């Protein structure tokens, strides 16, 4: 068994009915309904090796959560093959779920009214974790996440950041080889985020835990994942190293000019016609951004020519951020060289 997650042509369709408008429409809906089929996940294939940390990103409604639900066995796929930890998640459910840990950022899996340690104790029994292992392993987890003082508090009295750390600990009680995190850092402050990231890196290094992470916060991905899978309208549009994504897409630099007077696009284009420059207007007619190749000569030449002809108040050279790269990809809908 090479891959810990092996998915082939996975597809999920939902049928939903659309209501007709008006009173007459509502009556007609009583007898016949319009059904529409929506494809949430469209024939995706992916393989993940043991020990990888993979970021799974996409816009809202791109099919991330649906994929996670199919991989954890909550949803059955419409078609396609899924093998996770060498098992089919739907057959043999009880055995399968012992081999995974799941954290849903938006849903708690701890018991609301009782102390955190009681939830842990119950989960320990549920997963049949031997005492010895529990004591050493959990002591470690509790220490790293700094949740010791929270253990005797009921979950309802915890703040979001405190609860999230406890959720993570709860998902790791049975030390699963595979961890799914669905937006684990949603709504958390920077310090808690950092702590959680550090912790994830640590368990990945220590136990070789494979982690599949969905998030909207790209700094999570930058900090943790070497590989990203990008999803758009149910299709994988990029699967590869984060570094490569930056190289292919973030190759250029942007030069931001603030002129002392209004300038026009054709003037600027005329000035820099020898080079490949894309001019974009900023908030008003005196701010302009030039996107150029990452080449010292070109940058110098463009700046030199513009500054020689126009008076400027400010000048800034910036690298394109991952966030912009991803926005560009979504706008174009496909990946170059990719």
């Amino acid at each position, binding site marked *: 068994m090479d891959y810990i997650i092996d998915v082939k042509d996975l597809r999920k369709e939902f049928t939903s009915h659309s209501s007709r408008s008006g009173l007459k429409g509502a009556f007609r809906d009583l007898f016949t309904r319009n059904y529409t089929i929506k494809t949430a996940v469209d024939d995706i294939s992916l393989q993940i090796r043991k020990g990888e940390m993979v970021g799974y990103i996409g816009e809202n409604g791109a099919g991330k959560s649906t994929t996670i*639900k199919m991989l954890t066995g909550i949803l059955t796929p419409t078609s396609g093959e899924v093998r996770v930890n060498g098992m089919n998640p739907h057959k043999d459910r009880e055995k399968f779920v012992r081999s*995974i840990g799941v954290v849903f950022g938006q849903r708690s899996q701890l018991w609301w009214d009782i102390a955190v340690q009681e939830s842990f*104790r119950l989960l320990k029994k549920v997963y049949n974790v031997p005492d010895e292992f529990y004591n050493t392993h959990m002591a470690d987890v509790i220490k790293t996440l700094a949740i010791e003082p929270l253990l005797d508090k009921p979950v309802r009295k915890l703040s979001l950041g405190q609860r999230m750390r406890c959720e993570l600990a709860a998902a790791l009680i049975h030390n699963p080889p595979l961890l799914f995190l669905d937006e684990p850092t949603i709504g958390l402050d920077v310090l808690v985020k950092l702590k959680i990231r550090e912790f994830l890196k640590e368990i990945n290094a220590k136990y070789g835990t494979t982690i599949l992470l969905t998030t909207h916060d790209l700094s999570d991905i930058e900090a943790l994942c070497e590989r990203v899978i990008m999803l758009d309208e149910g299709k994988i549009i990029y699967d590869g190293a984060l570094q490569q994504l930056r190289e292919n897409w973030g190759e250029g630099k942007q030069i931001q000019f603030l002129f002392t007077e209004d300038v026009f696009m054709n003037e600027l284009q005329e000035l820099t016609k020898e080079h490949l420059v894309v001019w974009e207007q900023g908030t008003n007619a005196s701010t302009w951004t030039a996107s150029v190749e990452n080449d010292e000569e070109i940058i110098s030449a463009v700046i030199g020519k513009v500054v020689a002809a126009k008076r400027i108040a400010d000048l800034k050279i910036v690298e394109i951020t991952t966030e912009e790269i991803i926005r560009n990809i979504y706008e174009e809908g496909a990946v170059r060289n990719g």
Partner: protein
Amino acid sequence: MGKYLEMIRIRFLMMLAYRTNYYSGILIYSINIGAYYFLWSAIYGDKPSIQHLSIVQMTTYIAVAWMARAFYFNNIDREIALEIKEGKVAIEMIRPYNYLSMKMMQGLGEGIFRILFFSVPGMVIVYFIFPIQFTSHPATWLYFLVSIILSFVINTQINLLTGIATFFLFNNDGLIRAKRVVIDLFSGLILPISFFPGWAQSIMGYLPFQGISYIPSMIFTEGFQGSGVIHGLLNQALWCVVLFIPIQVLWATAKRQLIVQGG
């Protein structure tokens, strides 16, 4: 098995987490028993017995019926409905246990808590205030014990059915409330089954509800004798088995629906 026992313990802790609920529970049970005692003593007046039950037997019947109710009664139908509406069932599916068994264990934890902390202290209070006769036959106590366990199973199965129905009905608050009234009335909690008109009694003979309250209470008050006791217990056991079937069918369908539609 350990996980199921642990769940009972957790439920105990949850019940203890809310003290006000606990104290008001004792009060409500005592008031209910008292109210029914005064109502029945007014109805009895000078009559020595109605429908072969003496006033002392009747009072004992009421006290025992309420004590048994503390054990079999639980809100798991409401909880299941809530968990379905909030989409928490999806999380239950990623746990290595059977959801329905776990719910049943939670109900049992609640029942054991109530009988130990509501009913027993409540009964001690009631025993000193009202004329109640506790049987001295150990066999009756034993039969009663078996009987209330079966009544717990029947009631919980009905609750599971009502709860799972949320998968199919968008909002089943009405069903849950109706079920509660039906059980209180047809189980013999408010009125012993033998007080209903003959035609109603014969209909109720085909329904599972009398197994919830009437049979255990009659066994305890020794309103059932000899073969009557065995007959009652068999009736309860039969319903436990029969109700198991629709639950499995409904749950399998519900699970498919959950799996197809998503959390």
